[in-house]
């Protein structure tokens, strides 16, 4: 069993998984940990659905012209892939699963500020998802996930239902963000100052700011789109005197900050992984912490870089191009500081660390290719090509999903009290890494050579690269399915996990795996963030016993 810290494995305090039994106890729970777990399984389920559509896209692209579906169906398939992945997986996943589970524990609190609002946010996600599913069942949407007008006004596909679904799901995001901001400000344990909070908390906090400020604007945007379709208000319809580019401003004012909702929590996870698996405190705590806030605020002034070729004025394009360059700086600070953190650290290569390394490699590629796109003249050639597709998949999947998988493996023992099988996990990580790069690296070349995105047909000269990309998608899918498979099986068959399998230093590792319902049975001892090193060994002698990692 576990040789973890004393006084954590008695049975007086039931853990949150087994404390209350029965389906209703889960459906009506106010426990942030249970809500986090429900979000985890729900959003990963949506990830598999979105991934299924991705496999269909790649199958279709095995040959130019028709392979397995007609052109109209193809339009619907890539739209649904995008809409499901964006609104039902990647935006809620890390904040609402990991954020919900970890945030209160990491600040020494018993729960989030508004537990009932937390549960409501989960059901609101389902309500919105239900509307989206209705839209899909009726025949889906074929506008692209961006719903650009005027086509989205005219098309007969189920835009209204999907737009309403997005509207409702937006409330879930708002409630989560609102809860987290209030939690960080008002619920920290005595002694837990802002500068002692783990970086995952900083990044979740920065994300929450974006969620609260930006999401209402997508709300009004999709609401107005529905009003356009039903009441012909004309704001975005050139036939009635409106401007389709105005729709794009409205849409991207949310959707650009949204991509930072997607990545910034991932940044937070990486900070946790690198410090834990280098057994070293983060290099430059304050720059990394404040860079999350800087990214959050700067994300609101760059949205027009999605609209360089839409007919935007030169003035606006120049302003947005310059502003976007600025946002690269705080991001680079993080990458540099993570790398320096590893220097002279005691690095171990468990699966979470493998994913963290994948993240650094692939997110850097994604971020650097973004630089090509913000240069106005280059963007004219690359806009709406596969170059953009590769860029955002590298940052969203090579970035966020890698970070998510790393965090999933890192905190899996804490959440479920079970270890995953390390050897199999490395195979999975390898397959995911190879599969992802095989899928998306060729797409940079495709885009550079002129292959447009969202096109059903293509010239035969693009076929070899498309086929390579499709092969990659199968490798990637097998890696992901393997990973989810052994994780699920480990819930029943995994080795029981100690309180601190990694020898990491954070509040969540001082409580049992899985944690008790109220998180802390005693008042938690508050220490500096990432207290690695001998001075902390002396200062907190019994708090971090040398139980070693799972692989020892």
């Amino acid at each position, binding site marked *: 069993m576990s040789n973890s810290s004393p006084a954590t494995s008695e049975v007086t305090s039931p853990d949150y998984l087994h404390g209350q039994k029965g389906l209703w106890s889960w459906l009506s729970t106010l426990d942030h940990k249970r809500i986090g777990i429900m979000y985890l399984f729900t959003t990963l389920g949506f990830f598999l659905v979105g991934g299924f559509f991705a496999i269909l896209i790649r199958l279709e692209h095995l040959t130019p012209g028709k392979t397995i579906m007609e052109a109209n169906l193809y339009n619907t398939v890539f739209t649904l892939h995008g809409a499901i992945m964006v609104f039902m997986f990647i935006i809620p996943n890390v904040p609402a699963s990991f954020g919900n589970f970890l945030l209160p524990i990491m600040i020494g609190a018993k729960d989030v500020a508004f537990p009932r609002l937390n549960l409501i946010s989960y059901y609101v996600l389902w309500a919105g998802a239900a509307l989206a599913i209705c839209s899909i069942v009726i025949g889906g949407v074929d506008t692209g996930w961006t719903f650009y007008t005027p086509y989205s006004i005219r098309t007969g596909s189920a835009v209204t239902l999907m737009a309403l679904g997005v509207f409702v799901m937006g409330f879930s995001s*708002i409630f989560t963000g609102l809860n987290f*901001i209030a939690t960080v400000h*008002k619920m920290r344990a005595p002694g837990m100052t802002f500068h002692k909070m783990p970086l995952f908390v900083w990044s979740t906090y920065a994300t929450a700011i974006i969620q609260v400020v930006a999401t209402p604007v997508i709300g009004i945007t999709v609401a107005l789109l529905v*009003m356009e379709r039903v009441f012909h208000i004309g704001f975005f319809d050139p036939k*009635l005197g*409106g*401007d389709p580019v*105005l729709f794009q401003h409205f849409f991207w004012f949310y959707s650009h900050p949204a991509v930072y909702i997607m990545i910034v929590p991932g940044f937070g996870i990486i900070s946790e992984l690198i410090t834990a698996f280098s057994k070293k405190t983060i290099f430059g705590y304050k720059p990394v912490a404040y860079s999350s806030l800087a990214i959050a605020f700067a994300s609101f002034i760059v949205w027009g870089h999605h609209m360089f070729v839409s007919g935007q004025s030169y003035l606006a394009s120049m302003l947005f191009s310059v502003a976007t360059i600025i946002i690269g700086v705080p991001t680079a600070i993080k990458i540099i500081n993570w790398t320096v953190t590893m220097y002279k650290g005691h690095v171990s290569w468990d699966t979470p660390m493998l994913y963290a390394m994948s993240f650094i490699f692939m997110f850097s590629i994604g971020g650097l290719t973004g630089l090509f796109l913000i240069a106005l003249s280059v963007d004219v050639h690359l806009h709406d090509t596969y170059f953009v597709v590769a860029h955002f998949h590298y940052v969203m999947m090579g970035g966020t999903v890698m970070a998510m998988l790393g965090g999933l493996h890192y905190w899996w023992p804490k959440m479920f009290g079970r270890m995953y099988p390390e050897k199999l996990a490395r195979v999975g990580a390898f397959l995911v890494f190879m599969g992802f790069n095989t899928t998306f690296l060729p797409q940079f070349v495709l885009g550079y050579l002129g292959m447009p995105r969202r096109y059903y047909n293509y010239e035969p000269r693009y076929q070899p690269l498309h086929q390579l990309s499709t092969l990659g998608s199968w490798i990637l899918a097998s890696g992901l399915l393997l990973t989810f498979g052994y994780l699920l099986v480990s819930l029943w068959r995994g080795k029981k996990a100690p309180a601190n399998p990694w020898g990491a230093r954070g509040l969540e590792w001082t409580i049992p795996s899985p944690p008790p319902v109220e998180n802390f049975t005693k008042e938690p001892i508050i220490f500096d963030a990432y207290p690695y090193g001998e001075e902390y060994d002396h200062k907190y002698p019994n708090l971090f016993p040398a139980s070693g990692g799972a692989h020892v």
Partner: protein
Amino acid sequence: MSEDHNHEAVIPGTHHVVPHHFASAFAEFDASKFGMWLFLVTEILLFGGLFCAYSIFRGLYPETFHEAHLELNKTLGALNTVVLLFSSLTMALAVNFAQRNDRKKSALMLVITLLCALTFLCVKYVEYSHKFHEGLLTAGFYKFEGIKAQNPGLFFSLYFMMTGLHGIHVLIGMTIITWVLIRTRKGDFNSKYFTPVELTGLYWHLVDLIWIFLFPLLYLIG
């Protein structure tokens, strides 16, 4: 936080139990108020989109806006402004009386607030009926002949979207105020616990705030 888990922190004079994850009753009040201000931020941004659309279209079609707004009834608009401002006063007083433990006066103020809200909606109904009758509708359905400037339907689309979204918020506000009124009369609140009244007040003042801008922008284009 060293009490045992069975201790329930009930606020004296009420049935309200301070949830265990809060350190104290004040912590709950403080956090709840902060949460409400955060929510008001989202409302500002929600309406903000419409104000942005307004700025753009007014900048692009100034003559249209000037000519079209003449079809709005300034008197009714001004009346609604006064009614809503008065309802803000009574809502603030409702909170004030709850703070003073004066349950009867608090309830009375809530009732007057509700009546003001109802008046507001009735006046809006009169205005909307007139517009439907005249064909002063959204751009796609616009039928009125009397405006010479281009795209007058855009102005009325904005009018209906902005006052419509505002009207929905008035309705939601009325629902919440009714709920708070019922709880006030049941004796749920006193000077030590009146958080729901406070939060409702904040929401209602926001509704008033939006109208303070809508009125001159739609009705008083000089």
